[in-house]
C-alpha cells in the first residue's frame, strides 16, 4: 500500500504545483471560467431532469413507470460511458504513458504499479460522469421527497458503479495486452467504440422519437415505450444499483442495503481477480507494448500519378506543408474515430431535416420552411464551429515538439499560418456549403433563402477557420499528446465562445432585413427607403465583422507565435 501511495504522489504534487500562481499566471482565470461553465451545465442538467420528472409525475398511472425506466436507462448509459472511457484511460495509464519507463525502473512490484495506475485511471474516467450524475439523482431525491438514506445510497452506488466499470475495464485491458500490443488495442477499441456509438445513435434516431409528440400516434408510443426495455438481468451489477436506488427512493431500507451490498461485494471480488491477473500478466503486456510502431496500411508503391499531384497548383512551400499536414493527419489513428463521428453527425443532421413533420405544423408550411432555413444557417455555422474546434484549433499545437522545424524553416510564420488556414478552409467551405444546400433542398425553401444561406455561410466560414488557426496559435499546447486536449483548454473554450458570439451577431444583423424582404415578397410589395438603408447597413456591418474576424485573429496568432 505504501508503494502505491508513493507512486500516486507525482500526480498529486504536479496537480498541486500547477495551481501555484508563479507557474501559471492565467490559471485561476481559466479555473473560474471552467467552474462557471461547469456550474451552468450542472444547473441545466438539474433543471431539465427536475422538469422532466415533474412532468412524469403529472402523467397518471404511467408517471412512476416512466421515471424508473429513465433511472435504469441513465444508470445503463453511465455504466457504458464509464466502461468505454475506462478502457481508453487504462490503456494509456498502464501501457502508453511516457513516464512508465521511469516507473518500471523503480524498486516496486508490477502489482503496485498496476493498482496506482488503475486508481488514476478510475479518477480520470469517472469524475465527470459522477459529477453530472449528481443533479439527476438530486432531482429524483427532491421529486420523491427522499431522506438522507437515499443520498447515502446514491454516494455508495456511484462509487461502486465507477469501481466496477473501471476494474472490469482494467481486466479487459490486461488480458487484451497479452494478445496484442497496447497501441494496436487502443486503435482497435477506439474505432470499435465509435462504431458502436454510431450504431446506437442511428438506431435511436431511426426510431423517430419526434413521433412521440404527435398525439395521433399515442397508442404506438405506449408500445414504443414498452419496447424500449433496458437490460435488467438479476446477474448484472447495473440491475443491483438501479434496484438499490429504487428501493432507497421508496424507503425500503433492507432491499436497498441488500442490493448495494451485492454491488460492493462484486466490486471487491473483481478487485481480487484483477490483483491475480495483474500479477500474472501486467509486466508481460507492458514489455510486449514496447514494439516498433508499424503502419496499419502499407504505403502505395505505385510511382505514377499520386494524390500529391493534385496539389501542384500550390507554391512549393505551401505544397510541402499541405502534404505533410494531410499525411500526418490521416496517419494519426486518434483522428480516425473523430472523422467517423463527424460523418455520422452530419448524416443525422441532414436526416433530421428529411423527417421533419412540417405538414403537421399548425403554422403555414411555407413560412415554417423559410424560418427553419434561416435558423439552419446558424445551426450549420455552429456545427462548423464544433468541427473547427476539433480539427483546426489544435492544428498549430499538433506541430508539437517538431515546431522547431517550422521556426527554423525559411518560411515566415505569417505564411505558415495562412497555409494552415487554406488547408482547412477549402474542405470546410465545401462541407459547410454542401450541408446548407442539401438541408435547404430538403426543406424546399425559396430561392431567396437559398441564396442568402449560401452567401452567409460563404462569409462565415473564413472567420471561423481564421479564429481556429489564429487562436490556436495564440494558445498553443506543444506538449499535447492528444488534439482533444487542446480543444478543452482555455483557448479552445474562448474560440467556441467567440465563434458563437460572431454567428449570433451575424444572424441577428441579418434577421430584421431578411424578415422585411421575405414579407415584401409574400405581399408582393417593394421595400421602403429606410428598409433598404437598414438592409445595406446591416449586411455591410455583418460583412465588416466577418472580414475583421479573419484578419485580426490571424495577426494575433502570428504575433504570439513570433514571441514564443
Amino acid at each position: 500500500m505504501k508503494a502505491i501511495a508513493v507512486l500516486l504522489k507525482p500526480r498529486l504534487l504536479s496537480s498541486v504545483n500547477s495551481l501555484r500562481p508563479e507557474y501559471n499566471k492565467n490559471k485561476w482565470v481559466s479555473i473560474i471560467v471552467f467552474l462557471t461553465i461547469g456550474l451552468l451545465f450542472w444547473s441545466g442538467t438539474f433543471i431539465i431532469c427536475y422538469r422532466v420528472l415533474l412532468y412524469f409525475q403529472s402523467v397518471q398511472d404511467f408517471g412512476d413507470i416512466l421515471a424508473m425506466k429513465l433511472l435504469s436507462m441513465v444508470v445503463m448509459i453511465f455504466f457504458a460511458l464509464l466502461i468505454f472511457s475506462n478502457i481508453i484511460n487504462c490503456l494509456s495509464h498502464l501501457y502508453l504513458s511516457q513516464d512508465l519507463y521511469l516507473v518500471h525502473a523503480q524498486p516496486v512490484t508490477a502489482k503496485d504499479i498496476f493498482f496506482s495506475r488503475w486508481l488514476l485511471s478510475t479518477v480520470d474516467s469517472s469524475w465527470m460522469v459522477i459529477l453530472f450524475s449528481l443533479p439527476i439523482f438530486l432531482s429524483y431525491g427532491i421529486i420523491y421527497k427522499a431522506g438522507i438514506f437515499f443520498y447515502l445510497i446514491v454516494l455508495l452506488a456511484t462509487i461502486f458503479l465507477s469501481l466496477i466499470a473501471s476494474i472490469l475495464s482494467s481486466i479487459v485491458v490486461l488480458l487484451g495486452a497479452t494478445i496484442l500490443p497496447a497501441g494496436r488495442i487502443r486503435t482497435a477499441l477506439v474505432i470499435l467504440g465509435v462504431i458502436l456509438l454510431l450504431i446506437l445513435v442511428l438506431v435511436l434516431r431511426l426510431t423517430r422519437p419526434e413521433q412521440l409528440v404527435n398525439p395521433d400516434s399515442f397508442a404506438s408510443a405506449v408500445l414504443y415505450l414498452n419496447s424500449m426495455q433496458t437490460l435488467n438481468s438479476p446477474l448484472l451489477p447495473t440491475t443491483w444499483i438501479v434496484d438499490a436506488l429504487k428501493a432507497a427512493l421508496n424507503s425500503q431500507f433492507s432491499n436497498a442495503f441488500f442490493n448495494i451490498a451485492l454491488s460492493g461485494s462484486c466490486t471487491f471480488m473483481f478487485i481480487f481477480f484483477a490483483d491475480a491477473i495483474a500479477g500474472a500478466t501486467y509486466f508481460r503486456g507492458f514489455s510486449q507494448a514496447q514494439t516498433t510502431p508499424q503502419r496499419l496500411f502499407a504505403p502505395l508503391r505505385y510511382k505514377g500519378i499520386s494524390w500529391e499531384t493534385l496539389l501542384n497548383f500550390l507554391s512549393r512551400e505551401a505544397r510541402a506543408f499541405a502534404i505533410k499536414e494531410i499525411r500526418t493527419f490521416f496517419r494519426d489513428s486518434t483522428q480516425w474515430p473523430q472523422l467517423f463521428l463527424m460523418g455520422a453527425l452530419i448524416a443525422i443532421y441532414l436526416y433530421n431535416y428529411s423527417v421533419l413533420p412540417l405538414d403537421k405544423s399548425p403554422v403555414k408550411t411555407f413560412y415554417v420552411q423559410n424560418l427553419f432555413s434561416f435558423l439552419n444557417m446558424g445551426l450549420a455555422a455552429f456545427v462548423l464551429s464544433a468541427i473547427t474546434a476539433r480539427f483546426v484549433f489544435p492544428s498549430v499545437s499538433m506541430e508539437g515538439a517538431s515546431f522547431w522545424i517550422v521556426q527554423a524553416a525559411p518560411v515566415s510564420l505569417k505564411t505558415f499560418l495562412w497555409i494552415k488556414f487554406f488547408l482547412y478552409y477549402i474542405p470546410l467551405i465545401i462541407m459547410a456549403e454542401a450541408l446548407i444546400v442539401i438541408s435547404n433542398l430538403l426543406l424546399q425553401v425559396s430561392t431567396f433563402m437559398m441564396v442568402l444561406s449560401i452567401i452567409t455561410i460563404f462569409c462565415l466560414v473564413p472567420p471561423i477557420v481564421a479564429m481556429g488557426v489564429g487562436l490556436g496559435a495564440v494558445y498553443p499546447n506543444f506538449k499535447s499528446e492528444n488534439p482533444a486536449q487542446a480543444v478543452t483548454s482555455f483557448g479552445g473554450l474562448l474560440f467556441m465562445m467567440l465563434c458563437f458570439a460572431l454567428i449570433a451577431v451575424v444572424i441577428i444583423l441579418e434577421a430584421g432585413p431578411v424578415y422585411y424582404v421575405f414579407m415584401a415578397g409574400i405581399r408582393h410589395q417593394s421595400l421602403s427607403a429606410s428598409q433598404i438603408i437598414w438592409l445595406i447597413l446591416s449586411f455591410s456591418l455583418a460583412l465588416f465583422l466577418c472580414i475583421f474576424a479573419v484578419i485580426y485573429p490571424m495577426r494575433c496568432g502570428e504575433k504570439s507565435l513570433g514571441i514564443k
Partner: protein
Amino acid sequence: MIELLDLTKKYGPTLAVNKLSLHVAAGEIYGFIGPNGAGKTTTIRMMGGILAPTSGKIIIGGLDMAKNPVDAKKMIGFVPDRPFLYEKLTGMEFLRFTADLYDVNPLSFPLKAEQLLRQFALWDWADEIIEAYSHGMKQRLIIAAALMHEPRILIIDEPMVGLDPSAVRMVKDIFRQLAARQTTVFISTHTLSIAEDLCDRIGLIHKGMLLAQGDVSELQHIAKLGEAKLEEVFLTLIKEDTFL
C-alpha cells in the same frame, strides 16, 4: 559568415545571454562550450531564428536575422539538441518536405536524398515512418535533412548525442569536408574531446557571457595552463570566471 553583436536574451528576470559578441568566418569550425545553463542552446536557437533576442543583432552571411529571417534561414542548416521530427512521415517524405521548404531542385532531389540517406546509413529505413526510428537514427536523419539544401552555415546543438562511435566518426568527417568546401560549422557541445579534435576555434560561454575564445593553444595560454587538456582549461576558466 556568422556575426553576433551584443546579443542578449532575457527570460523574465533571468538573463540567459548577456551582450554576447562573436564572429565566425567562412569555412571555420567553431566550437561553443560551456557548463549547463550557460546560454549555449539559447544562443543557438537565436542564431537559427527560433528565438527572438531581447536585444543585439545576428548577422548571417551579411543578412540581419531580425530584418530578413527567411533569406537568412535559407543559408542555414539547423540541427537542434533533441531530435523531434514529424513522427508520422517516413524518412524519405521528411527529406522531400525539407527539400520543398528550402527550394532544392526537384530534379536533383532523388539522387541527393539517396546519397544522404546512404551516407547516414538510413537508406534501408527510407520508407519507414520516423516513429519507428531509434534516437540515433532520428539524429542522423535531422543532420541529413539539414544538409539537403547544401547550406553555407551549419548550426548544430549537441551533434553527437545518441550516435554510435562509427556514426560519430562519420559525422566528424562530414563536418571537415564541409569546412573544406567553405561551409561554416557552428557546434555547441559538452563533449570536449570532440571540440578539441574538430574545431578550429572554441568559444567558452558561462552565465550568458563569452569567457574566452581561440584555438586550443590560445585557450591554454589564457588559462595559463601550458599543454593541459581542454577539460582542464575549461574547468580552470569556469572556476576563475576569467573574462575575455
